[in-house]
C-alpha cells in the first residue's frame, strides 16, 4: 500500500489539507519528486515550476483546492510563462499573463505545479509529435498518450498529479482521457472565459477537467466553471445510441463499450436507438473548420519564427491546409448547422448520447495507426469520426473508463449531453463507476503500480 500523497484523489488531497492531516508543502515537494521520478518515459510534463508553485502555495487562499497541486495544458497564459502550444512559441501572440483558467485555479487555492505536454499546435489526436517529446500513455510507454491534451491525460493516469486542465477543439480532452484510462470532460462551448487561451478565438474548443474519476472532475470542473457542479440522481435518464458511431470498431473496444451501456441499462437507464442526420460528413467538417478558423488569428511574425522549428509533419500540414477550397468551409458550416439541429432534435427524445470515445486502443508511438475492420488507418482520422460531433455542436461530452483490453489497454465510453447539462455527464459517469465497482477508474497502469517492499 502506497503512502505517497499523489496516490490520493484530488478530493482526498483537498480534504486532508483542510483537515490538517496533510501538509501542503510536503505534498508539493512529493509531487515535484514524483514528476522527476516517473515522467522520463512519459513526456507528459513540458515544464514544472518549483519556485512559482511554492509562491502560489504561500499566497493560496482558502478555497475548494487550497494547497492542491494541479497541472495545465500548454495553451494557457500564466503570469510567469507564455503558452507555446507544444512548439517553441504559440502562433497567436499570447504572452505571459493571467488567463481565466489561471485566475480560477488561483482563486480556488490551487497550486499550478506544471504545464503539460500537448500535440504540436493542437493538431493531432495522438500526442506523438511535440517539441517536448512524444507523449506516452502510462499503460504502455511505447504507445500514444493521446492528443492534443496528452500530457494532461498521461500525468493524471500516472499519478503525477490528481487533476489537470485540458482543452478540446476536436476531441482533444476525450481522446487522451481514453488512451490514459482517466475521466475527461469537455464543457459546453463558451463555459469558461477565453482570455489567455491560445485558441480562444475558436468556435469548437473548450477547456475542461481531466481527473481519475467523475467526483474529482466534478471538483476541478466546478473550480474552472466558477460554480459548483451539483450531483443528481441519474438512473431514470434516457440514453440514445446512434448506430453510425458503433460501426467499424476494434472488437474489444466495441464489446467493452456495449457492456458499459448494458451496465447503465441494468442501473435503470433506458436505452433507445437514435438516428442523426449529416454524420457522414463529420470528419471533413471537423477537420476543415479546425484547421482553418485559426488562420486569421495568427501573428505573421510568430508564424515566421515558429515555422522553422515545427516538425516536418506540422510544417507540411500547415501548408496543406492553405490549399483547402473556400467552398469546403462554407459546406462544412452548412453541415454543422444540420448536425446541431439533428442533435437538438435527438435531445427532445433522450437525455444523453453514447458511443466509444475512440474506435481502437492507443496506437504505437512509432506507428500511430489503428487496425479497424475496414483496414489500417491513421488514428487521427479514425478518432475524429467519434469525437468531432461534440465540437461541431458545442454540447458537453465526457470520456469515462469502462474496460481494459486483453493487453491491458484502456477502453472508454463517450457520453454527450444537451447544451448546459454538463453535470448530467458526471452523474452518469458516477453511475457507471458504481455499476462496474470502480474497476476501471481505480485500475493502476504499470508505471503507477506499488513497488514491492
Amino acid at each position, binding site marked *: 500500500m502506497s503512502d505517497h500523497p499523489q496516490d490520493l484523489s484530488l478530493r482526498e488531497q483537498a480534504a486532508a489539507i483542510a483537515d490538517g492531516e496533510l501538509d501542503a508543502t510536503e505534498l508539493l515537494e512529493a509531487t515535484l519528486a514524483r514528476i522527476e521520478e516517473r515522467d522520463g518515459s512519459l513526456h507528459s510534463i513540458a515544464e514544472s515550476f518549483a519556485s512559482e508553485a511554492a509562491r502560489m502555495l504561500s499566497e493560496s487562499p482558502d478555497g475548494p483546492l487550497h494547497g492542491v497541486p494541479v497541472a495545465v495544458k500548454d495553451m494557457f497564459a500564466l503570469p510567469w510563462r507564455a503558452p507555446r502550444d507544444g512548439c517553441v512559441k504559440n502562433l497567436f501572440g499570447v504572452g505571459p499573463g493571467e488567463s481565466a483558467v489561471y485566475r480560477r485555479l488561483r482563486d480556488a487555492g490551487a497550486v499550478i505545479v506544471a504545464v503539460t505536454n500537448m500535440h504540436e499546435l493542437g493538431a493531432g489526436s495522438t500526442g506523438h509529435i511535440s517539441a517536448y517529446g512524444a507523449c506516452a500513455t502510462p499503460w504502455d510507454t511505447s504507445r500514444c498518450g493521446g492528443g492534443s491534451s496528452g500530457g494532461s491525460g498521461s500525468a493524471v493516469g500516472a499519478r503525477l498529479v490528481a487533476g489537470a486542465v485540458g482543452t478540446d477543439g476536436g476531441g482533444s480532452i476525450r481522446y487522451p482521457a481514453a488512451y490514459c484510462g482517466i475521466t475527461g470532460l469537455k464543457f*459546453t*462551448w*463558451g*463555459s469558461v472565459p477565453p482570455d489567455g487561451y491560445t485558441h480562444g478565438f475558436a*468556435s*469548437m474548443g473548450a477547456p475542461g477537467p481531466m481527473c481519475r474519476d467523475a467526483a474529482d472532475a466534478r471538483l476541478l470542473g466546478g473550480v474552472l466553471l466558477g460554480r459548483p457542479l451539483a450531483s443528481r440522481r441519474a438512473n431514470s435518464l434516457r440514453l440514445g445510441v446512434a448506430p453510425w458511431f458503433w460501426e467499424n470498431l476494434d472488437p474489444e473496444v466495441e464489446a467493452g463499450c456495449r457492456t458499459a451501456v448494458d451496465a447503465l441499462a441494468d442501473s435503470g437507464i433506458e436505452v433507445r436507438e437514435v438516428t442523426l442526420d*449529416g454524420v*457522414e*460528413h463529420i*470528419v*471533413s*467538417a471537423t*477537420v*476543415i473548420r479546425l484547421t482553418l478558423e485559426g488562420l486569421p488569428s495568427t501573428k505573421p511574425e510568430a508564424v515566421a519564427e515558429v515555422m522553422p522549428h515545427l516538425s*516536418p*509533419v506540422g*510544417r*507540411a*500540414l500547415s*501548408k*496543406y491546409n*492553405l*490549399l*483547402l*477550397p473556400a*467552398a*469546403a468551409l462554407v*459546406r*462544412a*458550416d*452548412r*453541415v*454543422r*448547422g*444540420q448536425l*446541431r*439541429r439533428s442533435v*437538438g*432534435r435527438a*435531445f427532445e427524445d433522450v437525455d444523453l448520447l453514447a458511443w466509444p470515445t475512440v474506435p481502437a486502443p492507443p496506437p504505437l508511438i512509432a506507428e500511430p495507426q489503428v487496425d479497424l475492420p475496414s483496414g489500417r*488507418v*491513421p488514428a487521427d*482520422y479514425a478518432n475524429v469520426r467519434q469525437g468531432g460531433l461534440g465540437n461541431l*455542436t*458545442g454540447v458537453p461530452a465526457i470520456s469515462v473508463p469502462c474496460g481494459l483490453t486483453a493487453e491491458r489497454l484502456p477502453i472508454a465510453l463517450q457520453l454527450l449531453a*444537451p*447544451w*448546459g447539462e454538463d453535470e448530467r455527464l458526471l452523474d452518469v459517469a458516477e453511475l457507471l463507476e458504481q455499476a462496474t465497482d470502480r474497476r476501471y477508474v481505480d485500475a493502476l497502469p504499470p508505471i503507477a503500480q506499488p513497488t514491492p517492499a
Partner: protein
Amino acid sequence: MERGEQFDEVVRLTLGRYGIPVDDVDLAVMRVAEQVYGPGRDALLAADLSDIEPEHDLDPSRAPAQPL
C-alpha cells in the same frame, strides 16, 4: 484537388503563387494527407446540401433554433 501525378504540380504552383516554398518532405506528407482526407472533402464538395438550411447567428453554447 488533383490526384496522382498532377498533385505535386498543383501544390507547387498554388503555394508558389503566395511565395510559400514546398520541398519533397512537404509533398510526401501532403500526399498522405490527401489520400486520407481528400475523399471525404471531395464527398462534401459534391454533396447536395441545397435542402439544408444555413444556421445564422451560430452560438455553440446553445441549442440551435429548429426550422419552422
